[in-house]
């Protein structure tokens, strides 16, 4: 198993559930590492389902959001799917303001997301 420094990975059914370790995702070096670790998830099997649970995230910078966008694109290109869940009201607002809520599939919690993967 790969060692991750910025993400925590678990499985639920056939979904890779990812949590971010930092509650303030803002340090440029940590964001670079997080980006690499998220990208490594796209090298998985076809149709790979990834759920990013942002439950413990109190802050994320737009540089961090950019990594999520790249993840979304790469995963889509590789025939996979990304959902986000457990956004704090503040984090959700960022996705609304920037209209990224039309790019990401945002679910209330893990159960709802897993059910939505179908």
């Amino acid at each position: 198993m790969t060692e991750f420094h910025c993400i925590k990975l678990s499985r639920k059914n056939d979904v890779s559930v990812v949590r971010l370790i930092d509650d303030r995702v803002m340090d440029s070096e940590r964001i670079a590492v997080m980006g690499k670790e998220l990208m490594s998830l796209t090298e998985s099997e076809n149709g790979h389902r990834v759920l990013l649970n942002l439950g413990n995230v109190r802050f994320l910078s737009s540089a961090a959001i950019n990594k999520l966008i790249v993840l979304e694109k790469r995963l889509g290109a590789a025939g996979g799917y990304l959902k986000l869940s457990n956004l704090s009201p503040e984090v959700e607002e960022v996705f609304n303001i920037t209209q990224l809520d039309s790019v990401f599939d945002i679910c209330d919690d893990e159960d709802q997301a897993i059910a939505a993967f179908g």
Partner: protein
Amino acid sequence: MGSETWGLDQYIASDMRVGNAMVMQIVENLQRIGWGESELFGVHMALEEAIINAIKHGNKESANKEVHVCVEASLHSFFLRVTDQGDGFDPSAVPDCTLDENLELGSGRGLMLMNHYMDMVQYNEQGNSLEIRKSR
């Protein structure tokens, strides 16, 4: 009832790590003088964009250039001035990041977030100095 003020007037290196540390120092001091977590969110967002843009786009992380950071804050207001030694830019020429074709581009999102969370966002004419302000 009373209130503390806190301020800062500092030149920092054009280094992302130094910028991150500056952002955290400001956030921690706002917390200390009484800003709550959720009110702090937008200020954190805006000041992060302001400082990181100055380091990255303004000074291009050059070891010969510094960023001048000024903060004046109380429980009721937040003011930040960030000045870099770059050529500046024309903020009105930055494409709207919410247009479908730009949505995934990233660029422009920082300016949009600052405008959303702050009461005032003002660049100087050259575009290398930015003032943002928020009242509570």
